[in-house]
């Protein structure tokens, strides 16, 4: 604790001294669970992250600071012990986001230290593992809810919708259900709308998002697409040797209105909407029950894609090795490619 003395305020210093034995004991206990938890590493995390959070909590509500300290300290031991935070962490986006959000919302932290500190840490770690940008985006969205969210519970509920918007399309349906429970001002913010919608307007947007996965909320606010459009959303997949998913060029197929890609060893389910596309590992035994003839969208050899809503020419779809479609999404695997093109149908 001696190294901390110069950077901490006097009240916090006093508190740390009073609790020195307990905190040291907790550290030793953590060493039992995480033998590689190094003292200097944790001390660095303590200085860079814990102290600023506790200082902020101290200025907000000194009566709750002890419980906040104990909570944040023990969560930190767990996370630094697992190498998810601290100087040795693979990336420090989650830690930075945790620090920023807990410092932005000291009131929520003081009110519900365990709920807020663990939830925020967990979601940031999950997002940072997928892509650091997603964690940054979530942090930014959550940071912008300050005056609107009145309770930690409401704020965290908004956080679930925000996580979906940051690019977790597999959570689309539960996130929409959570979004419906939010106040329209908070809901509008987490959906990335500049101006808050009325409660009715907000519910209408949610129902449109539910039926049309590829149209963004802002587009609905500005006006629906004037005619059916097929938008190439992007490429997904890639060779496993370059950080992708597939060992061999995959084959696309559909089952029960869901789209799958399968290589020689694994099967993946494609989950996508306007907020992102993701591949989730699926059961290899998923039957390829639907033939291309029954897909609502079909791809010709010259790259023409047609459905009951129209026809579009997509160069990258020419000579496709395989494709699969449901009513809103088309995935095309070009010949000899480990990548797949994801296209979304946007209707007026």
């Amino acid at each position: 604790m001696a190294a901390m003395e110069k950077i901490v305020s006097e009240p916090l210093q006093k508190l740390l001294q009073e609790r020195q034995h307990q905190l040291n004991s907790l550290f030793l206990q953590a060493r039992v669970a995480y033998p590689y938890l190094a003292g200097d590493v944790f001390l660095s995390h303590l200085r860079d992250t814990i102290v600023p959070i506790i200082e902020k909590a101290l200025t907000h509500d000194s009566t709750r600071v002890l419980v906040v300290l104990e909570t944040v300290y023990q969560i930190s031991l767990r996370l630094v012990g697992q190498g998810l935070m601290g100087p040795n962490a693979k990336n420090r986006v989650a830690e930075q986001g945790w620090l920023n959000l807990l410092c932005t919302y000291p009131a929520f932290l003081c009110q519900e230290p365990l709920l807020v500190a663990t939830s925020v840490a967990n979601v940031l770690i999950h997002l940072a593992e997928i892509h650091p940008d997603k964690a940054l985006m979530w942090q930014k969205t959550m940071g912008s809810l300050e005056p609107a969210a009145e309770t930690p519970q409401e704020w965290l509920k908004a956080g679930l919708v925000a996580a979906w918007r940051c690019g977790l399309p597999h959570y689309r349906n539960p996130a929409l259900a959570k979004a419906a429970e939010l106040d329209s001002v908070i809901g509008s913010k987490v959906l990335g709308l500049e101006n808050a919608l009325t409660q009715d307007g907000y519910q209408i947007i949610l129902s449109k998002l539910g039926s049309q996965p590829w149209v963004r909320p802002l587009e609905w606010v500005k006006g629906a697409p004037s005619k059916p459009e097929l938008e190439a959303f992007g490429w997904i997949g890639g060779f496993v040797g370059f950080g992708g998913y597939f060992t061999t060029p995959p084959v696309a197929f559909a089952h029960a209105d869901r789209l799958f890609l399968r290589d020689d060893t694994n099967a993946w389910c494609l989950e996508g909407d306007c907020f992102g596309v993701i591949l989730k590992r699926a059961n290899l035994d998923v039957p390829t029950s639907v033939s291309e003839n029954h897909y609502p969208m079909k791809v010709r050899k010259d790259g023409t894609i047609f459905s009951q809503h129209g026809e579009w020419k997509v160069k990258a779809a020419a000579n496709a090795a395989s494709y699969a479609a449901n009513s809103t999404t088309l995935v095309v695997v070009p010949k000899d490619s480990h990548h797949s093109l994801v296209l979304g149908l946007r209707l007026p």
Partner: protein
Amino acid sequence: MSFFKKISQAPTNPKPQVSDHRFDITELYEGPAGQSAQKEASQTLDEKLRQAYFWIVNNAIISPYYDIEYNEKAPRTFSLGDEKSRLTLPTAQSYSSFVLLPLLNLVVRRRCLLVGGPGRGKTASAMLMGLIAGYPIQEVKRAIQHGQPQMTITDLLGNPLPKDLVSADSMDSIRIAWRKWLGMRVKIIDEYNRIPTRTQSALLTVMADNYAEILDHVFECPEAAWYLTANDDAGGGTYQVIEALRDRIDLVVKALHFSPRFLGDLLARIESGIKPEETIPPEIVFSEAEISQLNEQILAIQIPLPVLRRLEFFASQFEFCDQAAEQFEYKTKDTVKLSGLDLASVLGEDTGKDKVKDLGSQTRNGLSVRALMTLMIFGKAMAYFRGGQEVSLEDFRQILPFVLHDKLTPNLESPFFEQEGKRKYRVDRIGWLRVLFDLSCAEYDRLDLDRDDPVTELSNELAKGLEGVSERQAEKVLIRIEKILDDWSIGRKLYGHLHDDILKLKYIHQRYSNYLRWLRWKKS
């Protein structure tokens, strides 16, 4: 939140499940930082019970002895040393009896004796049970009754208020200040063999009948789990433990020595100043309602008939003593005991039977109803703890030595204990009881009683009821019984199980003959 308060999120006894994963966005708030919110109590009580067990073995009691062994497939065994001691590496989840059995005792609310040398964690283990039952540590400490030679009934139960003693006109108006421990759901008696005999009798009333009595005033105690500790396995201490009190003990658990191989764990505990009893996670604390619910769920566990039948067969081996009486009903060891004769010498008389094969010759007594009830309850508890829907034979095999530890007294003069490799069973009662059960099951298999058991057939027939049974049918049954007895009387040696079968046949015969008599009377 403390690491010692951490409960593993992994299922303690994972079983194959049908995968039905639906994406739940709230999963995002769960993860490496721990549980964010108090999750709804979705976990089942058996899982909670296992969580409690694993928390104790991982964090509270350093007990590396997995002596309750289960196997899913044939285990690897090794013969070690000159004695060729057999070591088995179990292939299924196995348990430490010193932790598991007190925990099971907590939920079935019976009476458990923890025996072992000083400093082996007997009292600490009992205290942990009090804490898991939801009592604060100070209350548990206050409630422990420390046996000592000067302990009086007043010390144990309470005392009349002095003011009332002076001014009262009648016994009714004397108020009693009952000791608080009497009202608790976990009762701990430390070193019970140091309690004077007279006070032991008062304790017996509380243990056996669940009430305490002073000056005609009665305190009704709630259903409770009892933990008694003793340094001496035989129950001898400063005072001899009265027989009735010993008989009330349902389970005997041995506190084994500390393994020096775990000194590092002990050191870590000393260095960090950790006291496990102060860090019990709330997730493994059971409310009174939960313990009652657990109890109900345990009692609902089924004992399959073939398993029950083997238990019957085992239990019928011991009470029989051919030389004890003329009449079949009195051919019991109890008859000899009541006569004052030396049982061992009576058992030692030559009857032409193979005394090694006769399991009854190995014990000085039979099994009481209480012992059998306890065995079945703990069998169910064991099956429940393992996540089973019914009790397996192995559940009984594992629990049996701890339940019968003080219930079946070995007859050390039996030739069984003289055999090569069997002498150790004079000392190792747990091992002996397990072998006894194995031998009984082997004999059951040899007799092929699963397929060929006329007594069970006749019992099942009788269980259907006598209503509507014709005179002819009843006569047929009587003839069948007589035929069976005829067959058995030719050159067949009389063993305990046969004695019980014969008495059962006599009982069935009596029921049918009475019925027949009534039918004939009705006709005439």
